[in-house]
């Protein structure tokens, strides 16, 4: 099943021409510099932008033929748009009342977003982050069949983000609600998104699975210290004394800090390229909990020649390591050379 977006629209000094085909259910991140047209795409999907040419198809339903109210799309707007004349409670319930009963629970959402104490207040008396959380809640409680979120977490602190992200992941995993997410944080992309759409200047530069796009050195991610490998893994066992969990990532055993999941549960992990050091021999006692033997697949130097990105095959998994071109030379790295990839358990992100 897919979400297809075809959009052509021209503003006086900007034109968007976008064709996107996304797998559903899944989380897609729209990523790109300010002013590249991300919000424009969102408006077109929600039906609020009367675009010159637009066709949006979700799992066979031609959304663009429907009135915005009938699309069943929950939107978190970049500029909030809470109803100023209603309490937080009424804001939250506005969409809920108009939707069929659905999987998103009022009490749970309020609890999770930490807005229970705000229910009686008007949006005018909220802090920036509080407003943003209410906006997220309003869109979720609308029981959407598609969720559009324009930088939903930008005003939130890391702690709050860490609480909300798993909730969004669960919406995706358990309730199979597809999401389109605009974000500037590669961390959010890695933790939430399956698919990444990279935009620039009104068009799509690249789209595909997050893992593929993030490891592409021709895109900006590498230089922005954002490259990394995303790997599907299965929990093998827990070691409570060491406080670690062992994962099987395509035949490679990887240790991560202990997580509360039953063995053989499947999780995705992300190993940032910056976390991975390479060594030729076994390095002796070190703080790297993971020492993975692999083979150099290829080396790519970034255009600015400040960094070399090395792709390593280890079992079925691919790892990425970023190092200075000098270090690559010192190690005389070349394709097919066996190497050890060293990284710490706490450097691995479970997404």
């Amino acid at each position, binding site marked *: 099943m897919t979400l297809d977006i075809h959009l052509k629209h021209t503003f006086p000094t900007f034109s968007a021409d976008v064709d996107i085909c996304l797998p559903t259910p899944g989380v897609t991140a729209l990523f790109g510099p300010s002013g590249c047209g991300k919000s424009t795409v969102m408006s077109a999907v929600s039906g609020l932008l009367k675009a010159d040419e637009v066709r949006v198809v979700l799992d066979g339903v031609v959304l663009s033929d429907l009135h915005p109210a009938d699309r069943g799309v929950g939107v978190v707007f970049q500029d909030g748009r809470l109803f*100023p004349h209603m309490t937080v409670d009424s804001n939250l319930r506005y969409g809920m009342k108009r939707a069929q009963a659905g999987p998103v629970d009022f009490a749970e959402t309020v609890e999770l977003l930490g807005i229970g104490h705000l229910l009686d207040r008007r*949006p005018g008396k909220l802090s920036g982050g509080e407003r943003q959380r209410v906006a997220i809640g309003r869109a979720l409680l609308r029981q959407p069949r598609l969720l559009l979120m324009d930088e939903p977490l930008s005003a939130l602190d890391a702690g709050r983000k860490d609480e909300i992200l798993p909730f969004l992941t669960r919406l995706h995993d358990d309730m199979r609600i597809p999401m389109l997410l605009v974000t500037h944080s590669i961390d959010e992309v890695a933790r939430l998104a399956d698919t990444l759409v990279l935009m620039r200047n009104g068009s799509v530069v690249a789209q595909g699975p997050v893992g593929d796009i993030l490891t592409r050195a021709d895109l900006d991610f590498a230089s922005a210290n954002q490259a990394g490998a995303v790997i599907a893994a299965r929990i093998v066992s827990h070691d409570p004394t060491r406080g670690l969990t062992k994962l099987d990532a395509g035949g490679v055993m990887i240790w991560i800090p202990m997580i509360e999941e039953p063995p053989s549960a499947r999780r995705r992990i992300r190993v940032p390229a910056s976390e991975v050091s390479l060594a030729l021999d076994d390095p002796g006692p070190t703080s790297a909990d993971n020492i993975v033997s692999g083979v150099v697949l290829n080396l790519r130097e970034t255009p600015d020649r400040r960094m070399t990105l090395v792709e390593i095959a280890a079992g079925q998994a691919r790892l990425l390591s970023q190092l200075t071109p000098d270090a690559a030379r010192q190690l005389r790295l070349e394709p097919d050379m066996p190497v050890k990839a060293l990284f710490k358990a706490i450097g691995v992100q479970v997404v």
Partner: protein
Amino acid sequence: MWFELNNYEWQAIRLSLIVAANAVAMGLPVAILVSLLLRWPRLPFRSVLNIVVHLPLVLPPVVVGWMLLVVFGVRGPIGSLLNDWFGIRLVFTASGAALACAVMTFPLMVRAIRLSLDSVDSGLEDAASTLGAKRLDTFFTVTLPLMAPGVVSGAITAYAASLGEFGAVITFASNVPGQTQTLPLAIFTALQTPGGEEAAAKLATISVILAVGGLLLGEWVGKRLRP
């Protein structure tokens, strides 16, 4: 005593309140509707409607009364229909006085409402539609509450102006004590009579008191409505 009122004066007070309230009740929904129509830029004959709305403001009240008589009189296009189908006659009745006031104050209501309507952020209406609200639903839950200050202000202005409306009422509804003699008509009558100044002053004071009541109510409602 200075403030003793005779029967006709009591009736004038009661009637003025009824007429003003009815004028607002009649005019306001239409004014809201017309404001919404005028907001729609591609409305056919938009400027014609706009002009018609403003006529009562521009023309001397007597002329408006005159035109009302032509349209709503028993021989007029609308008046004859009302008379034939429902047996309703507006001329010489309190309803007619209310109609005259509604028409005279209509432009004031529309102006106030449009002013508020223009300041409603359409982004919020958009947000409502993504939350599943259709056009009417959005109107009643978002647009209307947000434009409420203009609606209230328009209603209060219309109420106050109705309390002072003279020319159109006397021309259209004439001056029948107890039926169409509202306060301004009573005041005018008093003023036209040699030595009637004191009675006029008394009635004018009452008129002001009634208006102040409305203004205070409006301010209070307006304050409660502000987000």
